[in-house]
């Protein structure tokens, strides 16, 4: 790809970016949110049309014409996107063959058999005739990869494929990637996990603010330098945060207490307390019930048993609004489905929760709404063309900041953050972690959930460990180490 330009209303997403991918290599594409990674990939796959620039494929002097995803597919360029783009109400096999214009889709038996074989080869634990929505997010992601792999691709693009996979699944994926590399497939790998880059990639291309920073062989670019390149500044921030060892020293006032709380989402009853100004976290493998616990605290799922007390007084809560009225805020795990209201503007998204709390008959005036929007856009450094921009056209990290701002605007006493840093860049991650600690020091209680244990260790002073939808342990103080957490998650078998 040579000299690619692409603009959106109000934003120049790409400014003359070059990118080269060789046969049989795994090439990491790195950059902060809004650096232009996703845009570059969408240009390559024909989702967006480029404004300027050319794309050349192997063995051809003429620029390739890629005007639609179909063109890209025909040229052997396959993509697995960050957000799963399959059809949840079709079967796994149908999802793998749909839109391929071949006869497979009409020959059900053969299709299911073929799909079954591929799944088996890749070691994906799903049945061909299973409905996709019955699979976990991780498996859905792997089906998407299986689909791409089966299409005989020469170029495979993986946009944040690992953000919802647990460690063993990631390992499996990496095995698959190495296998494909050996077969001569060029892989573009977009991720925010630095470890994974160093584990599997050969080269790194770094983008920043829509511009090319450089292309590097992995050995020449140590981790600290990579981060510095992505951020465009020398990085002490990360160290700074790491040095703080979290020990809860605040007051003893209990903000929220739950006893035998249970929701209909299939978790065992659990007890929970959080003190004023404390940061705690739920940890455990994917599907261990961490999200379900915090959802129960926010009444996002139907509560079937248990009592909740706020500052020692029993409160009756049955729906999210009750929880909000009791000063609880919840940033959900799935930003796209449960967080953003896509077509509404940044401003409307930002004031939504505060507005609902204020009441149906008391809309904020335009001036008030603008004031809030401007204040939080500045405070959280949200990158948006204006407050009127639809939130869906923002990058993932900036969408997340808007949702965070939405809840901060309600001035909660207890803030629940479920995977707030998933799929967002390292700079924003650190910003969010810092913000959490700052809020806690100001007296807000925070529950923080993250798939990255070191992130949790850095921010939380107490970890609640979950296994198989049950609370199995609690760690604090000296016990807050990576190995201890792993041990508790794994249980006695280790």
């Amino acid at each position, binding site marked *: 790809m040579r000299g690619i330009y692409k603009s959106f*209303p*109000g934003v120049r997403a790409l400014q003359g970016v070059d990118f080269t991918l060789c046969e049989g290599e795994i090439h990491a594409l790195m950059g902060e949110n809004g650096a232009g990674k996703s845009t570059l990939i969408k240009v390559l796959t024909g989702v967006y049309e480029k404004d300027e620039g050319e794309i050349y494929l192997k063995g051809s002097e003429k620029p390739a014409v890629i005007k639609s995803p179909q063109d890209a597919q025909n040229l052997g360029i396959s993509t697995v996107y960050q957000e799963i783009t399959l059809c949840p109400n079709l079967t796994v096999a149908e999802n793998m063959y749909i839109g391929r214009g071949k006869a497979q889709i009409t020959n059900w038996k053969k299709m299911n058999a073929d799909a079954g074989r591929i799944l088996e080869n890749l070691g994906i634990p799903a049945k061909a005739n299973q409905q996709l929505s019955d699979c976990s997010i991780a498996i859905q992601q792997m089906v998407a990869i299986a689909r791409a792999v089966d299409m005989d691709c020469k170029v495979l693009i993986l946009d944040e494929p690992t953000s919802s996979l647990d460690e063993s699944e990631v390992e499996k994926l990496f095995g698959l990637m190495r296998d494909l590399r050996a077969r001569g497939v060029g892989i573009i790998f977009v991720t925010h996990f630095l470890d994974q880059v160093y584990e599997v990639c050969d080269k790194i291309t770094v983008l920043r603010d829509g511009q090319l920073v450089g292309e590097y062989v992995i050995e020449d670019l140590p981790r600290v330098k990579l981060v510095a390149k992505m951020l465009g500044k020398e990085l002490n921030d990360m160290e700074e945060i790491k040095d703080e060892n979290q020990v809860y020293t605040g007051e003893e006032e209990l903000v929220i207490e739950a006893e035998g709380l249970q929701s209909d989402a299939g978790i065992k009853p659990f007890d929970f307390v959080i003190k004023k100004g404390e940061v705690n976290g739920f940890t455990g493998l994917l599907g261990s019930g961490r999200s379900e616990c915090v959802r129960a605290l926010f009444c*996002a799922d139907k509560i079937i048993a248990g009592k909740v007390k706020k500052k020692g007084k029993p409160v009756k809560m049955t729906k*999210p609004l009750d929880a*909000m009225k009791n000063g609880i805020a919840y940033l959900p795990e799935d930003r796209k489905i449960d967080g953003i209201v*896509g077509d509404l503007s940044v401003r*409307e998204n930002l004031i939504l929760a505060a*507005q*609902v709390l204020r009441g149906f008959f008391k*809309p904020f005036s335009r001036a008030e709404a603008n004031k809030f929007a401007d204040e939080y856009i500045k405070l959280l450094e949200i990158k948006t063309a204006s407050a009127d921009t639809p939130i869906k056209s923002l990058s993932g990290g900036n969408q997340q900041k808007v949702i965070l701002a939405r809840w901060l605007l309600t001035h909660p006493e207890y803030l629940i953050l479920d995977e707030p840093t998933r799929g967002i860049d390292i700079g924003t991650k650190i910003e969010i972690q810092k913000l959490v600690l700052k809020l806690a020091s100001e007296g807000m209680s925070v529950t923080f959930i993250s798939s990255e244990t070191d992130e949790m260790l850095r921010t939380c002073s107490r970890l609640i460990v979950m296994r198989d939808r049950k609370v199995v342990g609690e760690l604090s103080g000296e016990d807050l180490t990576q190995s201890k957490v792993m041990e508790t998650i794994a249980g006695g078998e280790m």
Partner: protein
Amino acid sequence: MTGKKSIGTENKFADLFRRQIFIPIAALLLLALFNLVVDPSFFKITLGHNSVGDPVLTGYLMTILDYGSEVAILAIGMTLVTAASGGQDISVGAAVAIAGSVILRVLVGLGGDGTLQAPILVGFLAACVVAMLFGAFNGVLVAIFRIQPMVATLILYTAGRSIAAWINNNELPIITDKGFTVFGGFIPGIPIPTPFFLAVLCVVIALLVLKFTNLGLYTQAVGINSSSSRLNGLNPTFIKWLSFVILGLCVAVVGLIKTSRLSTINYSVIAKDIEMDAILAVALGGNVLSGGKFNIMASILGAYVIQFLTTTLYKFNVSSDALPAYKAVVVIMLVVISAPTVKEKLGAWGRSLKKQKGAA
């Protein structure tokens, strides 16, 4: 953000195409232009006197104002239903028949001599209650039982006219009181048809409600992402339900206008196919039919555009049987133009045009 300002000025032309209200305005101008070229007498308005000697304005434009207002009133409710539920209510024609029937039943009763047995206001309020109840019924099916809106409202679409006939025991009560003709005719001394004033009143109320409550924000949020709305403390079920109840209120007003025009009712013909015009008005207004963002004024304008089209076709002596076919052709054109992909292309075209101009 250096690009922001230059894009702002450069894209004004493209912005015009993207503006939601652009489509109905363009359609209106196009229709007006067509009539102006073919036969300028279309725009002639004459001041005459009706049978009771009151001054009235007549002409095609007055017909549009008169009948377009019925669709406009329904379009208000239909826009909200569309935005909140992502579907449409196809039972409004039948519901208008029910509302009209209730008015007649309350005002003259069975076997009456045509004199008023109750104040008109009481009849109207009864119609409001009944129409809102039927709206609530549709709302329950859609919001609680999660039935596709078109399928859910198919029930009332099928049964509504029979229910309307049953309310009056299949009789056709006639109101002889002249006072009742005001709502579908003229207020003595004012030469503009009353339905237009009723439509203005409804629009003003709707706009005030949207300004002084969060109905707009809540409806759009629920229509775009109901799961996220719930986690922000909204009750999507209630808001969807509410939109159907509000549409019921609009139905009652149209029921009043319709029965007032005839001073009686024809169960199988009254407000026939008006639901299609109301849905078209919403579509013409550029509102997404799968729910989400909406613009009431664009729908209202869309309603009058549709009546403009109907009246134009009638003027050219298109028989009422052939009318839908002609209408369909025009509607296809309008809807295609307002489709997002076409709009994007038009916008890009506008930009390149501007660029060429700049270069020259």
